[in-house]
């Protein structure tokens, strides 16, 4: 027998073996088999509630480009866990946390979420920063019916039975910022953002609202997250002569933008910027060049509330602390206490029981930004809107405040300028 036909025979045999393996293995559910719910096949939870501790997972990027921001969130979660433990824990159980590194890599976020839920058997996961990381985590927590607490302001238009959002949705940060601009008589607005999901979506909403407010958008520029050079985009801003800049740039790219802006001769006096990702943590890196510009957040270190002084003091005393407090870390701090309140209202760590307790709409927490209330239907919290102006100490002077706490409205259902057909498409697509 020739070698060629022998080889052919071996190949055929291998093919046959392969096919058999697949046929034997392919006994799972097919499309259409499953009932309405998407997690009918989720394995029963392996969370152990018999001991005197309860395991929680913290998932933050400790390495990679986002580490500079997310390490702070990780740290404040550790501080919150220590505080809760010192006060007796959750339902009498001390928090034992498992810290995982998301490594600024979205598939890693998905992998670690699965590990925390199925290997470490944590009762809930806290963390994430970028919308991309949240979108990577979402299908995994939904598949395993886990809980994920996300602490950063984001683009909205999302909700999940397995995610709680303690940062602002668009009607608590973007829309207040636009109201502020309208109150200042802004007529021509320029949009500058990083090229990823949050700025793109935020700007889509800004454009819709601007049309309603009579504000003209005179330009829109994006630069990838990891690029710092804004020189040519700033030249376009100079040419467009806007009254104000809406800045949705994220991360260290802001430093390059603010520098190029200043070097082009643009200042807060001539053409101010309003940012949604520059807080107390980031401002020092930009020095005097950012002084006088604005930021829209819910929490500022300079807020005068009953609980804020204690929060600032605890943070300053905490090991490895940066010394300043900011909105995302405050939202992470809230998330841990909100979970405690939820579990204690439910009397159980069970995910369905926790969600049922949320549905009663009675969960509140005296946060450093004020008393926030959880909306049990969309899993977001009420927040005050604030605009701060950066002073020479890299702190924010409050320039504008919403007259009351803003109820979360992730799908912008109470805003008539948001087209109903787009909302429907989004809800449908989210499935």
């Amino acid at each position, binding site marked *: 027998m020739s070698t060629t036909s022998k080889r052919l025979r071996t190949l055929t045999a291998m093919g046959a073996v392969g096919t058999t393996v697949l046929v034997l293995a392919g006994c799972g559910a097919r499309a259409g088999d499953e009932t309405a719910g998407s997690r009918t096949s989720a394995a029963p939870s392996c969370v152990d509630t018999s001991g005197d501790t309860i395991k929680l997972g913290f998932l933050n990027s400790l390495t990679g480009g986002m580490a500079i921001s997310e390490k702070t969130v990780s740290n404040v979660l550790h501080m919150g866990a220590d505080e809760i433990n010192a006060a007796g824990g959750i339902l009498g159980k001390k928090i034992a946390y498992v810290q995982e590194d998301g490594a600024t890599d*979205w598939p890693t976020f998905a992998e670690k979420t699965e590990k925390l839920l199925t290997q470490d058997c944590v009762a809930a996961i806290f963390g994430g920063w970028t919308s991309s990381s949240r979108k990577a985590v979402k299908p995994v927590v939904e598949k395993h019916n886990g809980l994920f607490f996300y602490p950063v302001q984001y683009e909205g238009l999302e909700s999940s039975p397995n995610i709680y959002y303690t940062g602002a949705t668009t009607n608590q940060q973007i829309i207040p910022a636009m109201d502020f601009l309208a109150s200042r008589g802004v007529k021509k607005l320029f949009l500058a953002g990083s090229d990823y999901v949050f700025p793109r979506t935020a700007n889509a909403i800004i454009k819709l609202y601007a049309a309603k407010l009579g504000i003209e958008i005179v330009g829109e520029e994006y630069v990838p997250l990891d690029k710092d050079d804004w020189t040519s985009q700033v030249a376009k801003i100079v040419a467009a002569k806007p009254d104000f800049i809406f800045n949705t740039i994220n991360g260290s790219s802001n430093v390059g933008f603010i520098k190029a802006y200043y070097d082009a001769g643009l200042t807060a006096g001539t053409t101010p910027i309003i940012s949604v990702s520059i807080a107390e943590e980031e401002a020092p890196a930009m020095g005097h060049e950012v002084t006088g510009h604005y930021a829209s957040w819910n929490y500022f270190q300079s807020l005068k509330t009953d609980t804020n002084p204690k929060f600032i003091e605890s943070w300053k005393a905490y090991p490895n602390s940066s010394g300043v407090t900011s909105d995302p870390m405050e939202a992470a701090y809230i998330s841990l206490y909100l979970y405690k309140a939820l579990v204690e209202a439910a009397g159980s760590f069970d995910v369905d029981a926790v969600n049922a307790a949320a549905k009663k709409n009675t969960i509140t927490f005296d946060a450093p930004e004020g008393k926030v209330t959880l909306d049990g239907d969309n899993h977001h919290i009420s927040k005050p809107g604030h605009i701060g102006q950066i002073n020479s100490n890299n702190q924010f002077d409050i320039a504008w405040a919403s007259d009351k706490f803003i109820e979360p409205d992730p799908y912008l259902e109470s805003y008539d300028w948001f087209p109903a057909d787009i909302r429907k498409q989004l809800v449908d697509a989210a499935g």
Partner: protein
Amino acid sequence: MTKSKPWISLSGIGLFAVLLLAVAPLVLTDHWLNNLGKYCCWAIAAVGIGLAWGRGGMLVMGQGVFFALGAYSMAMHLTLETAGDRIPGFMVLYDPLAPLPVFWEPFRSTGFTLLAIVLLPVLLASSLGYALFKRRVKGAYFAILTQALAVALATLISSTIRETGGDTGLSDFKYFFGFVLNDPANKRMVYLIAAALLIVCLFAVWQLYRSRFGELLVATRDAEERVRFLGYDPANVKLVAFVVSALMASIGGAMFVPIVGIITPAEIGAAASILMIAGVAFGGRASLFGPALGAIAVGWGQSSLGSTWPDGWTYILGLLFIVVILFLPNGLSSLPARFTAARRSPDRQPAPAIVAAELEEARP
């Protein structure tokens, strides 16, 4: 060197098959089985790199490009399968009124998707390889060029956010050719497909290594001019190896998507492409099993050491890499051969061939 004892390689492949297809599903939890599936995808790409680099002397630094062709073809199909008649959610977010981009349309078809996973890398690699090898581009120039392609593609994907999902990538797939991905039984099936494909790829390169083509490939690596003088065209020999390695990278990428559940430009860019090379070098680029084992080892290190020691893991990888390059230039899989060689005849070492190739490569 493998020619004399084919049964060793064959039983090695058999052992690999038993471990991956029978033992692993029995002893590993669903989570670790899924992780192993991910490492298998990298291993499939690594087997191809072993062929092109280890045997062919072409330092393919941009396999992420071909990995991406397979991965994004698969991801587009799964996204459309999940979306049904609707436009995928992320596209609505960026521009609610625009239609589905035209190049997405054919990926609705299962047949087209499977064909694309095979044909796209073959077409790209043949035209690219033809242009480069006929012009005798090699060594560092070839490496830099392939690497630049990976960077360019990752940047292109990042900046076309509505068409490709940009930096966030494509994720949240519900079905895999009609199978519900949330079902653990189906996840095991996807793992088994990846593992079986790895075995098939190992078998295929083993056959290639044993063939006359394999001899010619090694000859081209070690003395391209002499091969030319003998009347062969080295460009054609290299082209075949390059195209096969591209195809394997694409298959690895395609399986990566249902297993990991997300694909982003970061998984196909420069760093990812280099990590694929690192696994191959670590395991032993010219050996049959080295590349696959190296890729699995690096993947495992990333999952487990990266968990216990997030800051330290990359340093460990770097250190291991230096140690292997310095003391074991043919990778960990040359360890047994080294021991035997040292014991039997201290003057015969298996290393020189590749060192010679390295010198050849260094010349422009």
